[in-house]
């Protein structure tokens, strides 16, 4: 969307910007909470240990950490009975294939029971709060209401078929529920769990360079240079300064990826001159191990200024912290103080997981503010949601190039487009998990996942729970991370950036 608007030089109306920010915000909140409870928590929480918990003590624990309403003895006893029924059935269902009983699990039974209760509560909660995404986007996932030049969903206080006072009230209630859960369940759980795993502030640090494109725009242009969460780059853990991003420094090489470059796989290419020709040289399945001294992944080695770079919540929070973002600094300092650790602790598996929580909290705090901003504009009579000045292709220049930057929940996402004769001539996506999951490059530098795993302790190599903790802390999303190939035409994808 932004790539095309950038190519065509389109500025969107305020209401469209705010609605886009709101859709992104609720997506972040839902996604991060799902990640914490449903994709990551069971790396730290032993479900079977919850059966040994005393529900009375669990209730006291809950009451000591927040004002959440589900805190009674009978509530936790009911949850425990539910888990017992699942475990005794021998069919663990959603709790199957865990390394239950692994000695790397350190929570007392009561904390495990509390966390499993919240795992189940979060399933219901996420279904409710994402209704806001459905309201503004017409459905979730894959919202339908975007439009080059703005949005297609009308705002009109006098229409039943538009964002009106009723929808604003509905969204305010969702925002209240979102913040309530994040403040009283997610953050207290995060702090409680983290306090038992402080050694994980020294494990899983990774490459130490961070990039954020910036998100939650303050202005209406297609560049994300003026955002509530700032754009920037941090080099080798140097938290004395945030560098400005120069997108020409983004390159990809394929020395260790299953592609072939016409002038040498080791020559890093800027997306402008990118090529994507498949060249699978790996073993035929079934195989035991990849040939990791050769090519071994479908993910290219994405680099910024030649460096492997981490993207995602930790990158955004570190960059915002160093850039002087007030709320990021306040909440991060509180979290670090509560855990009794310094700022260096952020560069770790636990730091990555904590940063995701910090980000969720501060976005949930902003949600009602942004809803009010939209409500006030509508009330004042500004009903514009779309700029149609350049909708007609006859108004476009013959050849246009653009790029669009966005922060997805998992990190920096860039799209590049080339428009020729009013049609898309080329398109390229450089996605968050492509940065984080990237393999070694021509210089032999490991990618962020790989580097983060070095020195991870493993109690049982055949039950690598500790490896999963670090990998999961990045929140991998692999479907996007892999590059494009056309096996029939063997076509090169040339990516151009304006």
């Amino acid at each position, binding site marked *: 969307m932004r790539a095309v608007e950038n*190519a065509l030089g389109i500025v969107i109306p305020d209401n469209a910007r705010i609605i886009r920010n709101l859709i992104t915000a609720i997506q972040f909140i839902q996604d991060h909470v799902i990640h914490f409870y449903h994709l990551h928590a069971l790396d730290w929480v032993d479900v079977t240990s919850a059966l040994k918990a005393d529900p009375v003590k669990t209730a006291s624990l809950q009451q000591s950490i927040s004002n959440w309403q589900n805190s009674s003895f009978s509530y936790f006893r009911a949850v425990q009975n539910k888990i017992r029924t699942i475990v005794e059935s021998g069919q663990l269902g959603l709790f199957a294939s865990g390394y239950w009983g692994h000695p790397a699990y350190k929570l007392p039974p009561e904390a495990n029971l509390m966390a499993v209760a919240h795992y189940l509560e979060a399933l219901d909660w996420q279904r409710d709060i994402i209704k806001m995404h459905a309201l503004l986007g017409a459905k979730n996932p894959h919202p339908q209401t975007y439009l080059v030049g703005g949005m297609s969903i009308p705002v009109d206080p006098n229409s039943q078929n538009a964002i009106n006072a009723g929808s604003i009230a509905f969204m305010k209630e969702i925002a209240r529920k979102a913040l309530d859960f994040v403040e009283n369940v997610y953050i207290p759980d995060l702090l409680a769990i983290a306090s038992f795993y402080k050694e994980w502030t020294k494990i899983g640090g990774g490459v130490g360079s961070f990039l954020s494109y910036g998100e939650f725009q303050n202005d209406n242009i297609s560049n994300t240079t003026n955002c509530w969460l700032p754009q920037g780059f941090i080099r080798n853990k140097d938290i004395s300064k945030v560098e400005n991003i120069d997108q020409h420094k983004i390159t990809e090489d394929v020395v260790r990826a299953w592609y072939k470059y016409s002038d040498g796989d080791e020559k890093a290419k800027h997306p402008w001159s990118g090529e994507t020709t498949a060249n699978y040289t790996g073993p035929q399945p079934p195989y035991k191990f990849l040939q990791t001294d050769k090519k071994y992944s*479908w993910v290219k080695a994405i680099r910024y200024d030649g460096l492997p770079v981490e993207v995602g919540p930790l990158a955004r929070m570190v960059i915002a912290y160093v850039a002087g973002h007030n709320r990021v600094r306040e909440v991060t300092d509180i979290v670090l103080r509560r855990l009794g650790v310094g700022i260096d602790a952020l560069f770790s598996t636990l730091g990555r997981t904590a940063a995701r929580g910090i980000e969720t909290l501060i976005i949930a705090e902003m949600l009602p503010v942004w809803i009010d901003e939209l409500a006030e504009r509508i009330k004042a009579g500004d009903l514009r949601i779309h700029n149609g000045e350049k909708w007609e292709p006859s108004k476009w220049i013959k050849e246009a190039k653009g790029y669009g930057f966005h922060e997805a929940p998992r990190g920096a996402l860039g799209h590049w*487009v080339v428009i020729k004769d009013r049609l898309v001539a080329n398109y390229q*996506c450089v996605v968050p998990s492509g940065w984080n999951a990237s393999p070694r490059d021509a210089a032999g530098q490991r990618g962020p996942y790989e580097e983060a795993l070095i020195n*991870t302790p493993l109690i049982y190599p055949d039950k*690598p729970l500790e490896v999963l903790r670090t*990998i*999961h802390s990045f929140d991998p*999303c692999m479907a996007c991370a*892999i590059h494009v190939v056309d096996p029939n035409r063997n076509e090169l994808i040339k990516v151009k950036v304006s």
Partner: protein
Amino acid sequence: MPKIAIDPVTRIEGHLRVEVQVEGGKVIDAWSSGTMWRGIELIVKGRDPREVWLLLSRICGV
């Protein structure tokens, strides 16, 4: 000096394989491998730029 492979890594979106080399109870080397590819960008070539967002958002639903 065991080498271990985790494939697929679960509780993520998509397909990821991780191999690690272990020595003295610690990971001493690691390799991350994406084991699938995507083809979505090809779909939008030759199309009206005003509709590509709708197609490309299907890259990821999470």
